[in-house]
């Protein structure tokens, strides 16, 4: 009886579930920020360190491309456009979901159990863990490089191309986000796969920061279809930069990023649910 009533209530609440999840994310992230603020000196030092490291990162990129003005037929600003959009998408996804790769740790420590007895999604609890405004520092070089690239790439701006830039960043963020969750979910099964999941996410971020033609054609084909990272920015960037596709994919592929993002997120969510089910049946 109580079961049925609760079931109806849950059914009615299906709409606000997303807003509820976002509110819970914000609440927990804010709590972590306040916890970090209990150590002001450490917070300032870490922020400075992040600023220094990311500043060096941006400087290194600019230095690198100053000496190699053309990579695989792409001019430096075009390469920097690829780098900037990818790094921005990856950075945002890292801020929002990067800590999900700690799942294996929580399973080993048994802290996941404590998360499971709370009425909040364990994914939200892990993703917000140690949330700090410092994480936003990772976006600085990406934003700088992207701003420079947009100014210098000599794009023939049409409304479609203007709209494509935010669309590709949002889609890219969602694709990386789905991959973070997927990588976390894999750890439910392979508890010691921490290293393996890093190569999916960080390796993926590296791959998208350089023109695909640098890499072997078969490999790119595999990446396009197997790991849809090419849709993070490569395909839409071809549209923005008005370049032909070296693989000769149909023109529609340039606009497929949002669809790919939805697909990857659905895959990540399904894998997470399956992983959690696996954990709850095996206890490890």
């Amino acid at each position, binding site marked *: 009886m*109580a079961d049925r009533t609760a079931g109806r209530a849950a059914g009615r609440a299906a709409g606000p579930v997303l807003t509820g999840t976002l509110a819970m994310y914000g609440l927990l992230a804010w709590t972590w920020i306040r*916890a970090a603020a209990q150590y002001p000196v450490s917070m300032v030092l870490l922020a400075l360190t992040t600023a220094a490291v990311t500043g060096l990162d941006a400087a290194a990129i600019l230095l690198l491309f100053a000496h190699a003005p053309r990579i695989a037929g792409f001019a430096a600003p075009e390469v920097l456009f690829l780098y900037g959009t990818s790094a921005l998408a990856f950075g945002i996804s890292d801020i929002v979901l990067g800590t999900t790769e700690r799942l294996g740790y929580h399973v080993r420590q048994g802290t996941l159990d404590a998360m499971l007895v709370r009425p909040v999604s364990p994914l939200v609890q892990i993703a917000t863990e140690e949330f700090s405004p410092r994480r936003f520092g990772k976006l600085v070089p990406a934003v700088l490089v992207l701003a420079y690239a947009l100014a210098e790439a000599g794009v023939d701006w049409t409304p479609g191309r203007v709209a494509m830039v935010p669309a590709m960043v949002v889609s890219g963020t969602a694709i990386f986000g789905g991959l973070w969750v997927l990588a976390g979910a894999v750890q439910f099964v392979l508890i010691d796969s921490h290293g393996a999941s890093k190569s999916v996410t960080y390796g993926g971020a590296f791959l998208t920061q350089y023109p695909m033609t640098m890499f072997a054609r078969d490999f790119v084909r595999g990446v396009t279809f197997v790991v849809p990272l090419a849709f993070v920015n490569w395909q839409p960037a071809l549209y923005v930069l008005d370049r032909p596709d070296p693989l000769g994919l149909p023109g529609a592929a340039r606009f497929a990023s949002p669809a790919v993002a939805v697909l990857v997120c659905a895959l990540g969510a399904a894998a997470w649910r399956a992983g959690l089910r696996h954990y709850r049946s095996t206890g490890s």
Partner: protein
Amino acid sequence: MPVAMIEAEDVVKSFTVRARSGGLRRTRRAVRAVDGVSFTVEPGEFVGYLGPNGAGKSTTIKMLTGILTASSGTLRVCGLDPSRRRTVLARRLGVVFGQRTTLWWDLPLRDSLALARRLYRVEAAAHRARLAELTALLELAPFLDTPVRQLSLGQRMRGDLAAALLHDPELLVLDEPTIGLDVVSKATVRDFLARVNTERGTTILLTTHDLGDIERLCRRVMIIDRGRLAFDGGLDALRRTVDADRLLVVELARPGPPIVLDGIEAERVEGPRQWLRLPRSANAAAVIAELARVHDVRDIALRESGIEEVLAGLYRGDHAYWCSGRPVAP
């Protein structure tokens, strides 16, 4: 109609254990951590759930709270299937793991309690009233504004109990809540739990290795051993089992044949030392006097088996353990 708080029927949890057996070959073996456990807990009960390490206590608790899914059998907590309705159930449960705090380490205790209100979606007015009540009962006021990392273990446990009870759960599940606490903190926690149970009517299921917890709090005791319930009954019934098995250890001047006295025969002889089991009806004083009159007795020890020994015996699957195996100090 009141629904049972917990209904477990033939609940099984088996795990697959993989062991490397030379080279790359691996053998798989199914281990039944919980092997067909059935029990019912009615609203308002205070149940102690005991068992040696690895007996299946934690696995049972994890199934009750929806962390783990049972391999077979049916389980209902607050009328819900915990594995399917984990988050709905979470709002109606209070869970405290004694070895692990859910409080925010770097923030004042007050903040963790405020966050609990948001997580469990408690109305502000109800929360205020409940917080005031818990603050008074658990004497939290002196350290409400202290960061949790600076609290003593006892204070932290009181904070954890408050956090687990702020949403007024129907069932409170405690996993070793008094572990590591000093005598005074233990007493505070026990008094509090007793009040929550009697005054609020909150059903409490508690696992512990502390026999003081059981004697002070639990009217009913369930003992799990190797995945099966070895005992389920009142504390009084457990005590009666204890009383039936008093043991007299007699040390004679020299080794001799087994003593026979008023129909009591020595169960065990080891040199000059003999073990006599006293039936419940026996008068220990009379038996000792008779022994001293008839035999040349050096020393006598009457071993009042406490709950501890009954448990030790049950845990070892050998009910007569303390009568046979272990040498008793004279």
